[in-house]
């Protein structure tokens, strides 16, 4: 039962990322809206607010990717997959997570750490007047999101293992749907 509980914990974590991303999206929507209105009506442009748009946007989709993995929202070519039995699907997910997903996410996360650290050490900020400082914050989203992806991938693996061990009785997991 430990594996089942671990799987559920990871799922909850991924869902939390989704909620954070959703809030970031709403902020981004109104950020862009505000920038348009203030520029058109008041000729007032804030480079910082303009840069905030893509900061929110980037954080939103980067954190959204691990959440979407847990929610089964990533596209699959289901020409063969769709017709397979639950156990076979579980095997595919288990093996591919191990061979494709985990190494990819970890490797990118690994190089992402250096990438963000460089920025931190340089004290990098925007090159434009009134732009945002602390570029390392948004750059660290890359290693963090990739690491969260790895964790979400572990969740998918556990799901597959639990299916193979007969701990999920029915097809309560619908990978392609939302």
């Amino acid at each position, binding site marked *: 039962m430990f594996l089942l509980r671990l799987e559920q914990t990871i799922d909850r974590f991924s869902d939390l990322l989704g909620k954070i991303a959703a809030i970031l999206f709403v902020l981004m929507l109104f950020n862009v809206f505000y920038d348009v209105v203030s*520029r058109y009506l008041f*000729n007032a*442009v804030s480079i910082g607010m303009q*840069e905030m748009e893509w900061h929110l946007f980037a954080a939103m989709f980067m954190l959204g990717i691990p959440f979407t993995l847990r929610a089964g929202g990533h596209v699959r070519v289901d020409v063969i997959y769709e017709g397979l039995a639950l156990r076979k699907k579980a095997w595919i997910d288990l093996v591919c997570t191990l061979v494709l997903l985990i190494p990819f996410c970890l490797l990118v996360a690994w190089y992402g750490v250096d990438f963000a650290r460089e920025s931190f050490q*340089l004290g990098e900020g925007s*090159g*434009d007047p009134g*732009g945002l400082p602390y570029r390392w914050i948004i750059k660290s989203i890359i290693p963090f999101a990739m690491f969260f992806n790895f964790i979400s991938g572990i969740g998918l693996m556990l799901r597959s293992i639990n299916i193979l061990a007969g701990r999920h009785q029915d097809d309560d997991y619908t990978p392609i749907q939302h």
Partner: protein
Amino acid sequence: VAAVIAPAQAAEKTYRLKLAETWPTNFGVFSHPAREMAQLAEQMSNGRLKIEIDTANKHKSAFGVFDMVRAGQYDLGHSASYYWKGKVPNTLFFTTMPFGMTATEQYGWFYYGGGMELMQKVYEPFGLMSVPGGNTGMQMGGWFRKEINSVEDLNGLKMRIPGFAGEVLAKLGASPTNIAPGELYTSLERGTIDALEWVGPSMDLRMGFHKIAPYYYTGWHEPGTELQFLINKKKFETLPEDLQKILLTAMKVSAYNMTIESHHASAENWFNMKTEFPDVQVKNFPPEVIAALKKANDELLVDAAAADPLAKEIIDSQAGYQKLIRVWTNIGERAYLNSMAEE
């Protein structure tokens, strides 16, 4: 026998270097220095230096060139120093400055006025060397949808103009605006922005701005934009001394050639533009506006100098050299040009 052959083999060893450009593939004159440099270096070294060039279309990170060369993912870069202002503020000064030196004057500063030493002082802590990489020459002040007749006309002016020059304009009440390059045309056409600054005649014509903005203002903010070759210092030091010399010479020659080519291309493009689009109105900013811009610029430089000792050293060096060489420019070229009727 082995002992005799070994040095000969070492001399024949081929060094392969990888260069990352900030520019996309086929970016006009900007694309030429790196290629010419690579070719020259290979020929002069009798094939011992081989330089492979990746454009931004390959590495996908136009503004990652500094980091990539620094980290050794690339050995060399071709870019422009002011792009790194957000990372290292003092890199700003080695491209061009509003109301600063012309290309020729600035080369004087680089090679004989202490500019090169100051540039290395800025780049050294990051394991990098930077050398001049070709000059675009005078850049135009940008495309405007409305005339600028007074300082008041700058108030609330929405202009796409990045960096330091944007800061200068902001001081006079303008609103520098970020617009994605892909949306510049639509934004200017529709009046989402009132003005923009792009590159110079050749690149501007490719974007078609002359069809949607009636006024093309002459330059003030980039009197001589110098590109740069970036060199990973550690890698550079692994090269035998003769190859180091060859590399630097190839860079200098190709930079020189780009400067000339750019001057030529601008002249040609200007002629074509005037022939094909006689409606484009070329304007100078009125003296009152120029004076206000200059004042704002000077104030910003004072602030920058107060904030950092090395910045002060560079600003003082540039101002001192400009004062010295401008006297000669005035006696020489300015007097000559003034003495002749405009033809």
